[in-house]
């Protein structure tokens, strides 16, 4: 099952041409930064907003408030697992 972890937009780049130089977003979460494509998102997010990413594409923008709530649910899930000593490891 795929967790929809929100990543925060730190920069919007490109945009010289809607087709050949589309806007892309530099996103960050937990120290990981990457560039993702925005063609599939509902709108171009603002810097500071969050996006949910699937396969290298932002599929949805989230406000900071929505993202914080989602992240808090995921942290609670991780806490439950930690208490049970079952925190998942990265896939081998």
């Amino acid at each position, binding site marked *: *099952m*795929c*967790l*929809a972890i929100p990543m925060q937009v730190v920069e919007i780049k490109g945009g010289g041409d809607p*087709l*050949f130089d589309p806007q892309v977003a530099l996103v960050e979460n937990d120290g990981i930064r990457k560039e993702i*494509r925005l*063609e*599939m998102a*509902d709108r171009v997010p603002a810097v500071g907003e969050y996006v*949910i*990413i*699937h*396969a*290298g*594409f932002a*599929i*949805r923008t*989230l406000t900071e408030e*929505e993202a914080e*709530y*989602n992240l808090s*649910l*995921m942290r*609670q*899930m*991780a806490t*439950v*697992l930690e208490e*049970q000593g*079952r925190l*998942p*490891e*990265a*896939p*081998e």
Partner: protein
Amino acid sequence: MAQVLTIDPVTRIEGHARIKIHLDEQGRVSDARVAISALRGFEQFVVGRPAEEIPRIVSRICGICPWMHHLAAVKAIDGCFGVTPTPAGHRLRELCQVMAHIHDKILHFFFLAAPDFVLGPDSDFSVRNIMGMVRQDPELAARVVRMRQLGQVMLDRFAGKSIHPVAGVVGGFAKPMSAEERSDLQRDGATLLDFASFALDYAKERVFHRYREEMQSLGAITTGFLGTIDDQGGLQLYDGRLRLMHASGTTVDFPAADYAQHLSEQVEPWSSAKMVYAKSWQEGFSLDPAAPKGVYRVNTLARLNVCDHIGTPRAQAELEDFRAQFGRPAQGTLLYHWARLIELIYACERTQELLADDRITDPHIRNTATPQAGRGIGCVEAPRGTLIHEYATDDNGCITSANLIVGTTHNIAPMNLSVRQAAASLIHDGVYDEAILNRVEMAVRAYDP
């Protein structure tokens, strides 16, 4: 010297999958495995929470397929509280679900799969992506983006922001459909149906025939299949009975609530993810590539294999053409893509069919539900396969236990077999290159994990 090749992460399935190919001292493939990062902890996390919150929470956590989890959960909670949704409630839920299928399929085929086929599996990684597609055919790329957005906008306009659906409620649906909403959706739905027909024609004429041999050979394995059908054996995405088909073609149909009598879950020592196998075949579970046991597949190809027919005309005509070429059950792994485009047509036709029925605007959208002790199983066909949510509640309607089987979980075992088959057939004497490794990835991408 023996070595391990790691493809990490599988391109375009970022963060989800990793492939390891083991070569022996002679450079032959001795093993190959695909690991998928699995969600853990949800089942423990929801215990003690009010059941009616679960459909909203799960759509936030499983936000790649929010509508599928939202509806599987709400159906399960209907069962816990012993309430039957109104017919209009069911219709509106199904409408949202088939519309969610539409944009998922457009995303998967054109953005994730098509670069392999249109630009070719041997093309350089740096161009074998959506930008390469844009350069090759800007008009098509622009149309694809418009259509995918249209699918999403339709859903948003009617049911609210689709990444966090809240419109499915225990006992039915949260809001009725107005006449104006209905006619807007019909207009946009017609545009999407035209595009779906174009997409399959395009793929058949310009793409699939060039890879005819690979469509049937790459990652090819022989397995059973699982999907959902209606009383007449027709394809269903929202509700129906499950049909488990053995590779020989024999089938058994059963209510989703009986899933545990037919399917069994198990965790392999080398994988963090659980796997599911067909317990009722009574052959056990084995991933031995020479003689796999208990392995079945879900998702588009499986649904087309298990159904006797499709209840909408264009999709039915395409199913007949597909069966005439590939038989039933069709086993070729890359045929998942072809089946995906037939399902895209079905989802568009079904959207129009539901909207054409005057009962879609029936204002009686919800029956009253009272929190109570009970047990419920909700099942829908998600883009990645049969999705099962099971919950039990206490007297206050709070969750006491939960079990989820998601689409990809069913397909982890067959994905491992396909990757091993692809790697073993392509890598000889330890010789491999990027084009070979990409073909191994294509065997995974077909399943869309």
